[in-house]
């Protein structure tokens, strides 16, 4: 991902009030991590599994933080139990920032990723998760703000799937 796009994501998250982000490092959006790390507005929480990333974000959200769990696409499967258990069933708002690997617009799509990509939407829909697919930086701040408003209205996780220009 180009540096300008990484800055745009981080600026948009900050503008939307997201102030705690759990993460397992991944391959498409990773350029945003150093930017988040050096900005004291954010609490950046490295985790060992996307599963605990979701549950830690849930706990922090109940404690008053505006939270996101950042992961690569397969992390949605790793954390599906946690998304349903503490996110959906308990009703806790959080943003799922997902590197949408294996999707049609993924510029680095290979056999390593494609099976996750083609099943992602069905997986999210099976859990009742609202989502947006983001292919470029146009209107990014508005789209992230919309997702945060949606997660707060629903009191459930909402996913942003980053592909296209974000995967270069």
């Amino acid at each position, binding site marked *: 991902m180009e540096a300008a796009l990484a800055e745009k994501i981080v600026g948009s998250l900050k503008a939307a009030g997201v102030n705690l982000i759990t993460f397992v490092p991944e391959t498409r959006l990773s350029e945003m991590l150093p930017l988040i790390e050096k900005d004291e507005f954010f609490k950046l929480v490295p985790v060992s599994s996307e599963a605990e990333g979701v549950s*830690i974000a849930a706990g922090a959200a*109940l*404690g008053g933080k505006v939270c996101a769990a950042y992961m690569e696409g397969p992390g949605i499967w790793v954390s599906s139990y946690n998304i349903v*258990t*503490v996110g959906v069933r308990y009703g806790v708002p959080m943003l799922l920032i997902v590197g949408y690997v294996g999707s049609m617009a993924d510029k680095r799509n290979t056999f390593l990723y494609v099976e996750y990509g083609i099943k992602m939407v069905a997986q999210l829909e099976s859990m009742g998760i609202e989502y947006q697919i983001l292919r470029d930086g146009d209107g990014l701040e508005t789209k992230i703000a919309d997702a945060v408003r949606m997660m707060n209205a629903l009191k459930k996780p909402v996913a942003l799937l980053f592909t296209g220009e974000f995967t270069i």
Partner: protein
Amino acid sequence: MIRYDCFEWLAPQMKDELVVTSLSGQRVEWGHLSHRDADLTLGSMGNALAVGMGLAIALPHRKVFVFESDGSLLLSLFNLPTLANLNPPNLAVFVFDNQKYSGTRISWPTATAGKTDLAAIAKGAGVEHSVLIREFEEFKREATGALKESGLRFVVCKIEESLVHRKIVRSNVDLLETKYKFVRYLERTEGKPIFAGRG
């Protein structure tokens, strides 16, 4: 050592500490003995420690107690390296290890009935204060320390399997009601809104 005895001793000493419990009998027993809005009885396996870590990070000035079970922690062992590296000084974790999946009704043994030592795993993950205790007096000492002192504390309590919780009438307070009571309590005591948005 019996878990119910531990809870019966600890519950009256709790003031504004936050408590997160996992599933199993401990949710029923703690819910029976403690009737505080500061209790978050999660009702799921493999989540209490992570949710407790999140709370401890979000509210570093509040003491957070997590009550885990061996079965629940075994489902989420990846929490332990994260716990060690985050090292939240306001978090105390008590793992009530009865070496059984009691909820199965056939008391199927967990890995801790075999060779597995959860305190040693936590120690190896980097949690400095990780101890294994077997006696009620040791529990009282650790719990008192957790109430009065700062510093991450991870205590594996080897307990006898007890089926007290099966004799307790289950609460009709559902998960959403528990969540809202807990969040509204935090909003009152922290003096800030937590859930954004008004109707």
